[in-house]
């Protein structure tokens, strides 16, 4: 499959009405106000499969998502799908029907060449409600800094957030 767009696409995934799960869309909203960001922006919502259409249109994609990594709340880790693919828990693959994990696998199976970098933030609370937890809110400027750095480095992992 071909990817025609040389621009970077930044996708924020999640639901703003599930507290920290809304970090992705929250960041997208913030980035929309920052003119110096040279990338297309997408609030990806929660329908994982939809994202494939957009991922395949770009050569480079940054995904911002609340990721359950078993780390302390607020911890930020950058990784590529290949780095975690084998470590995705079996049951989590299935709990959202067709979630981001399956989408990333399908991207690979369909031989879509897009370079993907995930910026994962460990959430504290994903229960129903609006607004981010304080511990997550305090990390917003750091996430923005990482996004800018990631864009600058053409999607290379940003130290010290990289895996391992």
């Amino acid at each position, binding site marked *: 499959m071909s990817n025609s767009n040389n621009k970077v696409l930044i996708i924020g*995934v*999640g*639901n*703003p*009405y*599930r507290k920290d*799960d809304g970090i992705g869309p929250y960041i997208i909203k913030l980035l929309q106000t920052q003119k110096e960001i040279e990338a297309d922006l*997408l*609030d*990806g*919502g*929660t*329908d*994982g*499969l*939809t994202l*494939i*259409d*957009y991922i395949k249109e770009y050569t480079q994609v940054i995904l911002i*998502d*609340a*990721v*359950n*990594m*078993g780390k302390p709340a607020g911890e930020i*880790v950058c*990784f590529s799908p290949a780095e*975690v693919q084998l*470590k*995705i*828990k079996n*049951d*989590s*693959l*299935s*709990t*959202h*029907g*067709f*979630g*981001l*994990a*399956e989408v990333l*696998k*399908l991207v690979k*199976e*369909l031989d879509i060449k897009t370079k993907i970098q*995930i910026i*994962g933030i460990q*959430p504290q609370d*994903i*229960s*129903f*409600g*609006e607004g981010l937890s304080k511990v997550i809110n305090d990390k917003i400027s750091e996430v923005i800094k990482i996004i800018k750095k990631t864009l600058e480095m053409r999607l290379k992992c940003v130290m010290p957030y990289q*895996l*391992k």
Partner: protein
Amino acid sequence: MSKDVKIDIQHITRVEGHGNIKIDVQSGELKECKLEIVEAPRFFEAMLKNRHYDESALITSRICGICSVGHVLGSLTASEDAFGIKISEQEKNLRCLMNIGEHYESHVLHIYFLAVPDFAGAKSVLPLVNTHKDVVVRALKLKKLGHEIGNMIGGRLIHPTAMRVKAMTKIPTPEILHDIIHRLEEAKTELKKDIGILKTFIIPNFERETEYISLYKYGEYAFLEGNIYSSDIGETSYKNYLDITNEYLVDHSTAKRAKHNRKSYMVGALARFNNNHQWLSEDAKTIAADLGLKAPCYNPYMITIAQFVELFHLADEGIKAAQSLLDNGVELENRKFTIKPGRGIGAVEVPRGILFHDYVYNDQGYIQKANCIIPTGQNLQNIEDDFRALVPTILDKSKEDISLMLEMLVRAYDPCISCSAHILNVEFE
């Protein structure tokens, strides 16, 4: 047959949410049969309180990533019912197109990515990429058509923003409408390529007659307006939806259930088909006959086939709506109206069945009370009753086969238990 079978499936796979199945058969007798819902109850009703009418549709669009347009349509209809607003023919046609986009997204996801692996004997769609790559790529293209209609008409790819009370804030150009007509015609051609594959599926031979409930408007395969129809008692005004749903709680599930004339009822594509099949488009009727779907159909595994048939009908309806917009011209409509305090009810068909939004507004247009009844909640007891009928007939099968048939049955209903959170779980070594 004297047999003990204990089944405990934690988190049914390929279902939009979390659900467990518990079955206990002792000496051939069914002792326990439960569909447990472990997801937290929805808090959107509370979240809607004190919200302005212009906000309510946007908030409810986040209840579900798959049925976001359906919740917007339910929400707008409820607000308009409260304020006494009659929408124009133009607005009806634009909403019809939005509804078609949503059904394409949702039905294609269910048919090709969640249900087909069952019939093809695969654990998920992933192995099918190697064996049926053309089908997977076609399915992605069909699903994309759904979002693109949402974008072209609704103003945003995901969670549309242009749909507002009384009228849209954005209108499509004639070029867009021509494009939609062309692409819906193309979609029908593409879908026809998969009829052969669908015919090869072995659909379990299980029938249980139940009460079928759907929206109903004489002369239409109703999606966006009408009354409520029960296959047992006939038509009821949408205003009296609470007489239909009669929600109640069971101790093993946090999701509310519904019952009407019997212990349970079915909503969704098969209920719509059973109640309104005579008003399907001619092409959809031909496809239904070709795939062996005849009304009344009592086999819940056929829901997937009914969804496939609906895709043809919806394409035809979309072509008609877009043509009507082209013939009559489209212009931005006046969105002014007078806020009236009071109650309004929205009853619409969304991919998984009939959805009710019920709001009470104050004189400033702020919601004082909200009630949302989703299709999946209405189907839960019916699925459990299917289990009770099915399990005694398949006790001669292996535990694995029984488990698979039960999981397939749940998946056939396409339940959306709660897909309103999206979290990626990973483990680092």
